[in-house]
């Protein structure tokens, strides 16, 4: 009796400190993450009006979602019943919503694909035991550098270089050489391509380092064995490196996807004038613009955020599900073994 009670007290006193130590994180997390998350769900059912100056909220249920997803707004029929039909306002916001979703996907694909190709190539070169690239550390730092520069500076730099008119740095060269100026910042394709390039340039170093650590985590004896068995570098790359890199690749893809869906800074800042370029306006910019307006629409912002949250959660869990399957049935390793067997049999 005595022993058990004293034991109990001792264990409680230790746990208490443990909880105390981790408390700050949970407090901060609740305040800055959980509360805003739930508040977003709440705001997505509200409509904000500013007739008197300060923002007044009104509960509208799922009307915001009806508007942004289906273009249906509330109105009354001849008998005075509330009906939902396509209205100009809801139609316009729906069109905008799908436009910015499209922009987001285009910009994400356009920077993810070149980024992963370049990173994979560089990572393979830098980790190749026989290539012995000199100054690896230097290159790693140089490639990582663009990521250290704040996005605002990068965007400002590119806007200055690529200004649309004949007075911009690049355009003045084109103009002086007798060519027609190119709208790098406001043109549809030009601005998108430029943003893809900026994003790729900023993030390929990060991805390269991630993939390099992934490749270095592969047991070198596999490469050695394959080499002794006479596998060509291409075979090694496609049959050993790539399959064993899949978990890291998936991780990169998930983080890049989440980051890509929330892409904000460069598309928002790679812009001149007071209004947003409609061809590079991403979903995050759209949310921001409706929130920070002279006449804010908290409901549209919040409901778009919720849709974005659902999409991100869905895509994220798909990726993780795929990833987990791979872990449980190590096909990749079997692939490597199969290669080994095959080569060994020769």
């Amino acid at each position, binding site marked *: 009796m005595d022993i058990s009670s004293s034991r109990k007290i001792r264990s409680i006193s230790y746990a208490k400190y443990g909880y105390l130590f981790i408390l700050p994180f949970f407090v901060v997390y609740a305040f800055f993450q959980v509360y805003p998350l739930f508040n977003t769900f709440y705001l997505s059912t509200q409509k904000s009006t500013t007739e008197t*100056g300060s923002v007044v909220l009104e509960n509208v249920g799922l009307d915001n979602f009806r508007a942004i997803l289906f273009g249906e707004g509330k109105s009354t029929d001849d008998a005075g019943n509330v009906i939902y039909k396509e209205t*100009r306002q809801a139609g316009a916001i729906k069109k905008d919503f799908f436009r910015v979703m499209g922009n987001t996907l285009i910009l994400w694909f356009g920077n993810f694909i070149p980024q992963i190709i370049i990173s994979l190539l560089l990572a393979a070169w830098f980790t190749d035991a026989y290539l012995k690239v000199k*100054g690896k*550390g230097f290159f790693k*730092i140089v490639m990582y550098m663009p990521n250290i520069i704040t996005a605002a500076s990068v965007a400002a730099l590119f806007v*200055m270089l690529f200004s649309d008119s004949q*007075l911009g740095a690049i355009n003045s060269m084109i103009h002086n050489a007798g060519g027609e100026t190119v709208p790098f910042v406001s043109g549809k394709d030009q601005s998108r391509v430029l943003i893809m390039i900026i994003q790729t340039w900023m993030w390929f170093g990060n991805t390269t380092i991630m993939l390099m650590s992934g490749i270095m985590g592969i047991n070198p004896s596999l490469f050695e064995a394959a080499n002794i068995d006479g596998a060509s570098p291409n075979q090694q790359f496609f049959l050993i490196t790539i399959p064993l890199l899949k978990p890291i690749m998936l991780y990169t893809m998930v983080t890049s996807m989440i980051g890509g869906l929330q892409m904000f800074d460069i598309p928002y800042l790679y812009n001149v004038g007071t209004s947003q370029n*409609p061809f590079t306006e991403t979903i995050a910019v759209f949310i921001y613009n409706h929130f920070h307006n*002279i006449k804010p629409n908290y409901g549209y912002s919040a409901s778009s955020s919720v849709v974005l949250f659902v999409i991100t959660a869905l895509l994220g869990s798909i990726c993780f599900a795929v990833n987990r399957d791979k872990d449980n049935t190590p096909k990749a390793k079997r692939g490597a073994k199969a290669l080994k067997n095959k080569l060994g049999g020769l």
Partner: protein
Amino acid sequence: MKNLKKTLAMISSVVMAGSVFAACGGSTESTGDTTTAAPAADATTAAAAEGETEAAPAETEAAAEGGDAAATDKLTVLCWNTDDIDPMLKLFCEKTGHTADEFNVKSFGCGGGEAAENYDAYLADANNDADIMFVEADWALKYINDDNATQALSNIGFSDADYADLYGYTIEIGKSTSGVQKGLSWQAAAGGFCYREDLADKYLGVKTPDEFQALVSDWDKFMETAGKVKEASGGTTAMTSTLAGVWQVFSAARTNPWVADNKLQLDDECKKYIDLAKTMYDNGYVIKDLAQWNNDWYAAGQTDSTMGYFVSTWGFGDAILSQAAGGEGGTTYGKWKVVVGPQPFYWGGTWATVATRCNNPELAKEFISFFTTNAETAQAYSESKGEYVSNQKAMEGVLANGSYTGVGVLGGQNQFETLNVVAADINMAGGITPYDSVIKQAFNDAVTQYCQGNYADVDSTIDAFVDNVAASLPDLDYSNFE
């Protein structure tokens, strides 16, 4: 290899640490700016400003609290930059014997368009002091219609008789929708077309502003002249820098407000503008794809790529023209002249309103009346700053006095003589609505896209404009466009 890595790690950490300091330098510099820019700022306000720039929540809070305790009996002025308040305070203190210590300038260091957001955040804390708030015409009604933000000028001792000398339109914009006078502007933001005298001589053979005015006295002539300039210069000189300036002229010429009976409407002037904008863009009468307020926009004034800018009274200094000329001693400084242009117009202007939480009504009244209703001091301000003020008597005084001879960038021409003609013709038939800033932007976005060839015709441009507005302002009625 190890050493190389170490060295590189060292270099990169130094670079990173350096960038941290660079950032610090930047912010202290800007803090320094605010402090020097605001003579009123004592140690407490400087601390508040620093807290603001560094965005450290705890620090801001502490500083704001500290600032309030000391600032309760100071006159707190909310503004977005110190371009106006600095010269105003200087003259005010000089003439009235008040000291800068009695003022607390809360400048948010942003564009006029972003000011409202900062004001909202600032006013959300009931402990933050505010006495006078500067507002811009485009979003003035947001605050003027809000009794929790601003109060009637009659509360602090103004009466309607006081406004007799002011230009009518400056009074009108200061009224709430229900007709309560809540703001007064010290500027009559009349504008004109500023052109390069040397280029006009070279391409058009025009020597005097009067001759030039004859060539641009209406839009048909303006376009014709633009064509001549384009041709004579071999395609290198555009008549005006951007469409944005042209738009200000049409915007001021509107005779209907954007919204009437909660219905969106499009004034005929706006339709005319769509056509004219497209013609100007296609013919190269504006510099292709040049954005207003961009660095390149100013740089254009130092090259021969543009004949002129549309400039409002506040734009003769560094805001537009002087900067475009390269500043004092710049390439084209002194080579500019101003004419009325195709249509008289006003552009922008800042209104002073009294905050509801104003705890310093006497000084607030003294300050506002100093620059507006008091003709004598308003005249002094006009002469010292070179600004066309809202007080007609003051302007008559400036012109009669003759001691003011115009800004340097005009090389001896007095812009007031031109603006005086313009100001007399300004009316506010268009009226303002609380939605103006959103709608104007939506309209300009649509026109820009049309010019760049993304919409096929005028109808689809108008359609896109209505969609732009409808997405932002769902509570308006769009039946006019169905």
